């Protein structure tokens, strides 16, 4: 009963946030509500027994998306209060389609087809890790993950093309020292998430996103000035996840007995996965940081 009540209230809050973010007349406002929406989604994942996703959503929704949206927000022209004519016809149209969708979603059988879950639990001991989500991501469906890293890289390449200049302003000493104080903690936590990924919720993406938000904070406070795509080492770091992934795949292709693409020998699978994940974490962190911060010009520190 308490659980159901919680679900209902959570659903109400999420819907309110989403609705106001879309229908609000002020864009700044919409962005902030959207960030709160991210936190609420993290709670929803937590409630629905998906701690991996809750971690990821917390890192992205509560952290990076906000920084990203604010960057776009400061560029918005001054006249922000848009004259949204909420006309009835489109609303009715969308409502009709949503109702139809709702009808079909309700038809989904409540008891799922257990074949795939069963398959996962059977194959789990050969995957090299104990946590099924990590096993799926880096062993059973590792090709998806490789392509996903490629998508991330492509976003960066595209954003490089659309580079626009932004100035970084000298920070207050308070925010600067606070970010410096936080950074060892963030690095520690990153390592913890990465290492735990083998046996419990956590893993490369969550760790990478967390590290990225640490880097973003430092970068926005005019630290880490070497962090730029022009720097070949940074480029190498951003590509390292993919490179290691592909090269490990090729290596296993040549050396494993069955000669299959992305097949890790069971004995070494755990180590291979941890290795790939470490580089993927680095790559994800660097890529996300570059995506959020861009290539800003530094303002001279004012006295």
């Amino acid at each position, binding site marked *: 009963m308490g659980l159901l009540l919680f679900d209902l209230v959570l659903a109400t809050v999420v819907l309110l946030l989403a609705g106001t973010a879309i229908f609000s*007349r*002020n864009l*700044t406002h919409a962005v902030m509500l959207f960030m709160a929406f991210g936190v609420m989604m993290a709670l929803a994942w937590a409630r629905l027994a998906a701690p991996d996703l809750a971690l990821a959503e917390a890192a992205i929704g509560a952290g990076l998306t906000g920084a990203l949206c604010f960057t776009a*927000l*400061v560029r*918005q022209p*001054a006249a*922000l*209060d848009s004259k949204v004519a909420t006309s009835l016809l489109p609303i009715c149209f969308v409502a009709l389609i949503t109702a139809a969708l709702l009808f079909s979603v309700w038809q989904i059988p409540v008891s799922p087809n257990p074949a795939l879950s069963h398959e996962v639990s059977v194959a789990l001991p050969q995957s090299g890790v104990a946590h099924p989500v990590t096993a799926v991501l880096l062993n059973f469906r590792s090709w998806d993950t490789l392509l996903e890293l490629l998508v991330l890289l492509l976003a960066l390449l595209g954003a490089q093309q659309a580079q626009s200049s932004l100035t970084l302003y000298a920070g*207050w000493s*308070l*925010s600067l020292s*606070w970010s410096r104080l936080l950074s060892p*903690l963030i690095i520690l936590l990153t390592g913890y998430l990465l290492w735990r990924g083998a046996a419990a919720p956590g893993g490369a993406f969550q760790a990478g996103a967390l590290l990225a938000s640490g880097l973003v904070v430092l970068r926005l406070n005019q630290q880490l000035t070497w962090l730029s795509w022009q720097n070949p080492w940074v480029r190498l770091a951003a590509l390292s996840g993919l490179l290691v992934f592909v090269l490990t795949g090729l290596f296993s292709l040549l050396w494993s007995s069955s000669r299959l693409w992305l097949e890790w020998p069971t004995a070494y699978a755990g180590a291979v996965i941890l290795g790939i994940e470490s580089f993927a974490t680095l790559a994800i962190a660097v890529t996300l940081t570059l995506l959020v911060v861009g290539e800003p010009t530094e303002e001279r520190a004012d006295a």
Partner: protein
Amino acid sequence: MSWLDGLSWFLLLLGLVFFIAGSLGLLRFPDQFSRLHAVTKADTLGLGLVVLGLSIQSSWRETLLMLLIWLLVMCSGAVSCQLLARFSRDAADAEPLISHQEPGQTANSTSPASAPVTKRAE
């Protein structure tokens, strides 16, 4: 054990009271800086009480983790309160680009601190 459980629940409920107090403060306080305090202080205290209440029922490892979380939230509450307040003060002194008022809210805005912002936004 039952008195421990009772203590735990008492602390949890007390935490809840502080959360509600924070929200009420946010709702009812007259100007933005007091509202800032309502959120950053009361909620931090509420969280602390919740953590205490929960740690009575948990193992020492979980308790340690929860205390770390509380410590973090406490520090971040203090720091971000400072940052936000300073930011808001500076924003009031300068030409704001994005702190726009919705039309119609200029008139009924009661808070003295927000008045200069409103004036410049137009």
